[in-house]
């Protein structure tokens, strides 16, 4: 197996791995967006900015408090989740009674403010974040070299995605979430405090973005615009998968990451637009998305 369609296997698998890693971030981020959209009906434009904040919290913890990667992996999502709770309670909540477009506008404005503030403070160049010692190095798999940290990112994202899917589709708490997504009034009439559930859902969704930010820090560096570069593709992923579909977000995220990687190998010129071409096609054929239900 020296060449596959005239491509050296090293290059092919290298791009597939890159695609898988991008796909892991797409999956984690679009999962959070899907959970939020399902429950709040808000297209959370602040998602990319909060992903960036997650990465920055990790960097700040390391730089100013000496707290390393593993601590940041817990503390940064927690911090971003708390920021999310505060945003939902003080601002987003006021908009549920008006057109959903206002939620989109509010979160878009928040994203601009947050990114602007970080750019003002830290400039646009990235801050390096070291790979933790335990995940340094790599393994030669024969057909390719696998850096340990990249393997970890893929595995960790997959586990978090599957765990979230399980919690939503198979547990009691998830049943409350699904029911409240469908008919919040009735769930409230059974004695569940739905507004608190809504806040927690938003907090959880953005905490996933914060977690993705920490995972990304050692790979992409920590920079104020890291979120806005990524989030456009992630929105396309959400549209392709179907707004609000949990499984759709995960499968589409990983799938499109891989597809992007393959395009880089076979037709590099198209690799930046392939996701959007697919989005256009899906929207024409199945407007609710691959996994979405028509409402």
């Amino acid at each position: 197996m020296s060449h596959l369609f005239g491509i050296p296997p090293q290059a092919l698998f290298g791009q597939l791995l890159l695609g898988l890693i991008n796909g892991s971030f797409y999956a984690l981020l679009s999962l959070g967006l899907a959970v939020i959209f399902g429950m709040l009906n808000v297209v959370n434009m602040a998602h990319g900015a909060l992903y960036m904040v997650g990465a920055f919290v990790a960097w700040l913890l390391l730089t100013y408090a000496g707290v390393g990667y593993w601590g940041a992996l817990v503390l940064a999502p927690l911090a971003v989740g708390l920021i999310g709770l505060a945003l939902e309670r003080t601002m987003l909540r006021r908009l549920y009674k008006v057109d959903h477009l206002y939620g989109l506008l509010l979160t878009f404005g928040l994203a601009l403010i947050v990114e602007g503030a970080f750019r003002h403070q830290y400039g646009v160049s990235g801050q390096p974040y070291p790979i933790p010692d335990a995940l340094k190095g790599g393994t030669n798999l024969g057909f390719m070299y696998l850096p340990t940290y990249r393997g970890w990112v893929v595995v960790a994202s997959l586990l978090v995605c599957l765990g979230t899917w399980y919690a939503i589709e198979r547990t009691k708490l998830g049943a409350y979430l699904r029911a409240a997504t469908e008919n919040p009034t009735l769930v409230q009439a059974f004695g569940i405090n739905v507004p608190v559930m809504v806040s927690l859902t938003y907090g959880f969704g953005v905490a996933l973005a914060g977690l993705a930010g920490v995972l990304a820090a050692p790979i992409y560096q920590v920079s104020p615009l890291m979120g806005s570069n990524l989030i456009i593709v992630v929105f396309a992923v959400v549209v392709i998968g179907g707004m609000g579909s949990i499984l759709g977000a995960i499968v589409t995220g990983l799938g499109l990451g891989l597809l992007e990687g393959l395009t880089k190998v076979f037709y590099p010129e198209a690799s930046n637009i392939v996701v959007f071409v697919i989005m256009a096609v899906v929207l024409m054929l199945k407007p609710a998305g691959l996994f979405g239900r028509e409402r």
Partner: protein
Amino acid sequence: MPDGTQTKTAMLEIADLHGFYGESHVLHGVSLEVRQGEVVTLLGRNGAGKTSTMRAIMGIMAKRTGSIRFQGTELIGMAQHRIPRLGIGYVPEERGIFSSLSVDENLTLPPVVKEGGMTVPQIYDLFPNLKGRGSTQGTRLSGGEQQMLAIARILRTGANLILLDEPTEGLAPVIIEQIGVAVRALKARGFTIVLVEQNFRFAATIADRHYVMEEGHVVDMIPNDQLHANMDKLHTYLGV
């Protein structure tokens, strides 16, 4: 049970209840009273305000004035999610079975709010149709089965007052018969029930008293044993 003690305690007292959907004023001074262990119906034409009265009790209709007391506690002004936790179970007119939940998940969704609720096996005895359907998607059940599920899920919670909004609407006579058997069994178990019905022949087989509503308030109260004597009047009220 000796008369005058438990049976006479007012469980639900509504006085001069006004209710609004936004600017639209739809309840105009509803007053009624339900005693412990009673089955009371709300009769009236479409649009008379029966469903709105139930929604006002549950706090779903949030804009309301007057007084709604449950076992002495005022419900107006109370946080909406606390009202069911006092022991009030609501079975909405549209049944509200969740399509993203299985039958089992639908059945166990409402949290237990008090001790003394029915167990799942007891509920299956009451509604044998639901047995063995646990993993079915909730909305794949027939209309009658969905109605049974909507009632069943409240029985687990320990609620002692049940608001049943048109449980027989659109159902076949055999199914209506089954629902009637179940509601009588619940009455025998000591549940207090407020029942909205268009079908007053069904209501007459179950209820102790009937409140007649017209244009957002109660216009008459007829004890079940005087229903026959009041047939003409009732026909005029209901326009049948």
